[in-house]
C-alpha cells in the first residue's frame, strides 16, 4: 500500500487553476520531495493532503484514508509543519509541546524531543524570542510530538541561514532513520538533492517530472559542459564529430563544449591523442538546478537549453 496516494488532483480558485491532474504516490519510509517554483501549486497540493482544503476533482489517500472525511483519524498519525503557521508570541516552547501532546493518543517524550531538536535550553523561552531556526525546529518538534507515521514538511528551510538549514536537514535525515515517511515541499534544489529519494517536479499546477533527483537531472539533458583553452589549434569539426558533443562555441581563446554523459571522456581522449593540453579547464556537471530550470522553462521561454551559470558542482 502506498503511504500517500494522489491521483488526478485538480484545484481551481476562481479563474486560476492552482493544481491540475497531479498524481503521485509516496512509499513507506521514503523522503519524497515536491519541488517547484513559487506559486507552482505545491502548497495547494500539500493543503489537500493535510486536509486543509478539498480538491475539486481527483482523490487523495493518506494511509488509505481520505483527509477530508477521516481528518480526525489522520491528524493522529500525520505530523504537519506548515509554511504559514505560528504560535502565540508569549507561549513557551515546552508549553506549546505540552498543549499539542495533550491531544495525541501516543506521544513522544517531551524532554527527549527537546533534546533531539536542540531546544532543551530554550524550553522556557517564549515563541516570540526564538530565532527563525529555533522556530522551525519547534515546528518540527510539534509535527513529531504525536509519533506520526507520516510527516509533511512545507518549505522547511525558507528564510533560514545556511548553517540553520544544514541543521534542519540533519533532523530530517534522522526522522527518516526512524522509518517515518516524509513529504518534503521545497523550492531549494540543494535541499531536494540532498534529502529526497524521489521528487515530483511541479510547474504551474502540473507534474512535469517524477523521478529520483539524479534521474530528473539525467532526463533534462544530464549534460556536461567543459570549457578550456587548447594549447594547439583543433578543428571544430573534429570536436563536433564526437558522438557526445551537442554544441560548441568560442569565447575568445576558449572553447566551450556541451554534451552528454561521456563528453568529458571523449574530448579528453581526443585531445590526448593529438597531444593538445587543455588549459584553464573547467568542467560543469549539470545539476538538479539546471534540470529544474530546463523543465520548468520549457513552457516559459523558447530557449530551453540547460545553460545557466553555476560555478563548480
Amino acid at each position, binding site marked *: 500500500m502506498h503511504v500517500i496516494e494522489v491521483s488526478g488532483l485538480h484545484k481551481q480558485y476562481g479563474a486560476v487553476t492552482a493544481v491540475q491532474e497531479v498524481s503521485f504516490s509516496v512509499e513507506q519510509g521514503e523522503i519524497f520531495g515536491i519541488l517547484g517554483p513559487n506559486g507552482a501549486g505545491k502548497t495547494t497540493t500539500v493543503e489537500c493532503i493535510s486536509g486543509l482544503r*478539498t480538491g475539486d476533482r481527483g482523490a487523495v489517500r493518506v494511509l488509505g484514508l481520505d483527509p477530508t472525511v477521516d481528518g480526525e483519524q489522520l491528524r493522529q498519525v500525520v505530523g504537519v509543519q506548515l509554511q504559514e503557521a505560528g504560535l*502565540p508570541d508569549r507561549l513557551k516552547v515546552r508549553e506549546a509541546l505540552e498543549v499539542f501532546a*495533550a491531544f495525541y493518543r501516543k506521544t513522544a517524550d517531551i524532554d527527549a524531543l527537546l533534546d533531539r531538536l536542540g531546544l532543551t535550553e530554550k524550553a522556557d523561552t517564549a515563541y516570540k524570542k526564538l530565532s527563525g531556526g529555533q522556530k522551525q525546529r519547534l515546528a518540527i518538534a510539534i509535527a513529531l510530538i504525536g509519533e506520526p507515521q507520516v510527516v509533511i514538511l512545507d518549505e522547511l528551510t525558507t528564510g533560514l541561514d545556511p548553517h540553520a538549514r544544514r541543521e534542519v536537514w540533519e533532523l530530517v535525515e534522522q526522522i527518516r532513520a526512524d522509518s517515518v515517511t516524509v513529504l518534503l515541499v521545497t523550492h531549494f534544489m540543494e535541499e531536494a538533492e540532498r534529502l529526497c529519494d524521489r521528487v515530483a517536479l511541479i510547474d504551474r499546477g502540473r507534474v512535469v517530472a517524477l523521478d529520483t533527483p539524479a534521474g530528473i537531472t539525467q532526463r533534462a539533458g544530464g549534460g556536461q559542459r567543459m570549457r578550456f583553452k587548447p594549447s594547439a589549434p583543433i578543428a571544430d569539426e573534429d570536436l563536433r564529430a564526437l558522438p557526445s558533443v551537442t554544441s560548441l562555441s568560442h569565447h575568445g581563446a576558449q572553447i566551450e563544449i556541451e554534451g552528454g554523459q561521456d563528453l568529458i571522456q571523449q574530448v579528453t581522449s581526443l585531445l590526448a591523442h593529438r597531444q593538445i593540453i587543455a588549459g584553464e579547464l573547467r568542467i560543469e556537471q549539470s545539476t538538479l538546478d539546471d534540470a529544474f530550470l530546463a523543465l520548468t522553462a520549457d513552457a516559459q521561454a523558447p530557449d530551453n537549453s540547460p545553460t545557466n551559470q553555476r560555478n563548480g558542482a
Partner: protein
Amino acid sequence: MTTTMSARDDAPRRSAPLAPAFRMTPKGFRALVAMHARLLFREPGTAVVVLLPLALLLIFANVHSARYTPQKALGGRTVLDVYVPTFAALMPLMLALTVLPGRMAMLRESKALRRFRVSPVPPAGMLVALLAVIVSLAAAGVVLVVAVGVGVYGAAMPSGLGTVIAAFVLGSAAVFALGLIVAAVAPGQGTANGLGAPMMILNFFFSGLYFPVAEMPHWLQKTGEFVPFGAVMDAWAGQGALWQHLTVLGCYTLLGGVAAVKLFRWE
C-alpha cells in the same frame, strides 16, 4: 437513496467551519484552558482590566459624601450605591469587547489557528476554552467588585437579588455575544480594538460610568434601555419593565451568537 447520494456528491465539498470542533478529552480541554490562562496573565493589559474597576471603587468609597450622602436625584441612593454595579459592569464589558476579540484576533494573526487545525487540537474547542477562561475572569471580577463594595464599604444591595443576578448574567452574555462577532471577523488585533472599543464605550456610557443614568434626559435614558448594559443597570435599579430588559438582553445574546458563528473565519 441513490438520488440523494448523488445530489450530495455534486454539491461543492466544503468542510463546515465549526463541525468536528468540540470533540475533545477532559485532558485536552484542561491543557487548552491552562494555555489560555497563562497567555492571558502574561498580557500586561489583563492586570489593567482587573485592577481598574477595583481602583475606581476604592477611590469613590474613600470620598465621604459619595459613600454616606443619599442623593435625591439618585432616588435616595448614595453615589457609591449607584456606582458599584457600574464598576462591576466594567469587568464583563472590557473582557468581552476588547480582551476576547483581541485574543482571538491574536490567534488568527499569528497563524496559530492554522497550526492547530492540522493537529488533533480541535480549533473551535480551543476558542471555547478561551471563552471559558475569559468568562470565568469576568465572573470573578464582578463578584470581587460587589463583595468589596457591599461587604467592605456598605453599599446597598439591590432589592430583587435574583432578577439582578439574572440581568447581570444575561447582560454579560449579550456583550460577550457582541464581542464574539468582532472576534469572529477581526483579522488582527488592531481591527479587533477598533471595532470593540466603540461598543465598549457606548456600554460604559449607558452603564453610567461617565454620568449617572438617573440624571440623563428622559429620551437618552429610553435609548439606553436598548443598549445591553443600559438594560442591566435599569434592572439593577428596578426601573422600567423587567421583561423588556431581559428581552433586549436575550435578543442581543441570541442574534450576536448566531452572527458570530455565521461570520466566523479561521484565517
